[in-house]
């Protein structure tokens, strides 16, 4: 099996994750309008990548594992994205005309 990460690696990742949690918290106190949620999600995505790549060891795993891990996230995007296509575009026809 693949190499075993050191305790130091794990603790470093933990520290980054904890710092980013506080960053998320403090950024939420600043008014960025609609960008608040975007920033928060970007930070969350980054935290997820750290957990997946290091704590779950996907970085050292086979391409197959990476494919399955990525597919899960991608399929979620398919679900949310294609559903939102409907809701977002409903207001594009305010007068009932197509163009």
């Amino acid at each position, binding site marked *: *099996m693949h190499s*075993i*990460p050191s*305790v130091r690696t*794990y*603790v470093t*990742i*933990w520290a980054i*994750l*904890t710092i980013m*949690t*506080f960053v*998320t*918290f403090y950024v*939420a*106190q*600043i*008014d960025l309008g609609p960008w*608040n*949620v975007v920033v*928060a*999600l970007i*930070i*969350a995505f980054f*935290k*997820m990548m750290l*957990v*997946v790549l*290091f*704590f*779950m060891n996907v970085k050292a795993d086979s391409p*197959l*594992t990476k494919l*399955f*891990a990525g*597919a*899960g*996230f991608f*399929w*979620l995007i398919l*679900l*949310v994205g294609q*559903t*939102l296509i409907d*809701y*977002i575009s409903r207001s594009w026809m305010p007068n009932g005309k197509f163009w």
Partner: protein
Amino acid sequence: MADTHAVATEHEHSPHLRHHFDDMAQQFDSATLGMWVFLLTEIMFFGGMFCAYSVYRSMYPEAFASTSQYMNPKFGAFNTAILIVSSLSMALAVRAARLGQRKALQLLLVITMIFGLAFLGVKAFEYHEHWVDMKVPLFAGHWDYSQAPQFARQAQILFCFYFFMTGFHALHMIVGVGLLTTILVMAHKGTFSPEYFTPVEISGLYWHFVDIVWIFLFPLLYLIGHTRQLI
């Protein structure tokens, strides 16, 4: 026509080898792939709730923002930090199992469970606060949004999702603690070794996944519209 030669099968193998597998490596790889496929299903299960939540949030941004008054982001952030510590201890536990460090493994499993239970404790406290505040629409009559009646109906949707999403998450945490208890017992009996630590590995994957769900739940449920005074 397939040639039916024998593939050499050793009869000296780990007592943990299940006989439909050729060797421990195949067994380990299958178990971890199986857990990843299961996590895929979990992503889509929680994902359904995230999808519905996203749709309603896009439809009712103000109503959703008004609910931040009743969420305590400090608790949310604290809980996030707790879970991240438990993820660290879990990752270190898997590492200890791999290295055959029995005592460290047991200690780290216990630490993980303690932090997991602490998380659940904070959630229980928060649920109690919501109950006192009359913000639990799941039970008839336990809903009061008189401070901002114009948002009452849509805020109810948010609170439904809050309870469903954190509720299913807490359920998964409880299952996780149960899993880890089983692993702890097995570790205590000396079941694990550098040749066989599969159950620890796949429990670790599960635990980290539950952490990731919370990493997304925290900003989405707790950090909406904190800067705006809507109520």
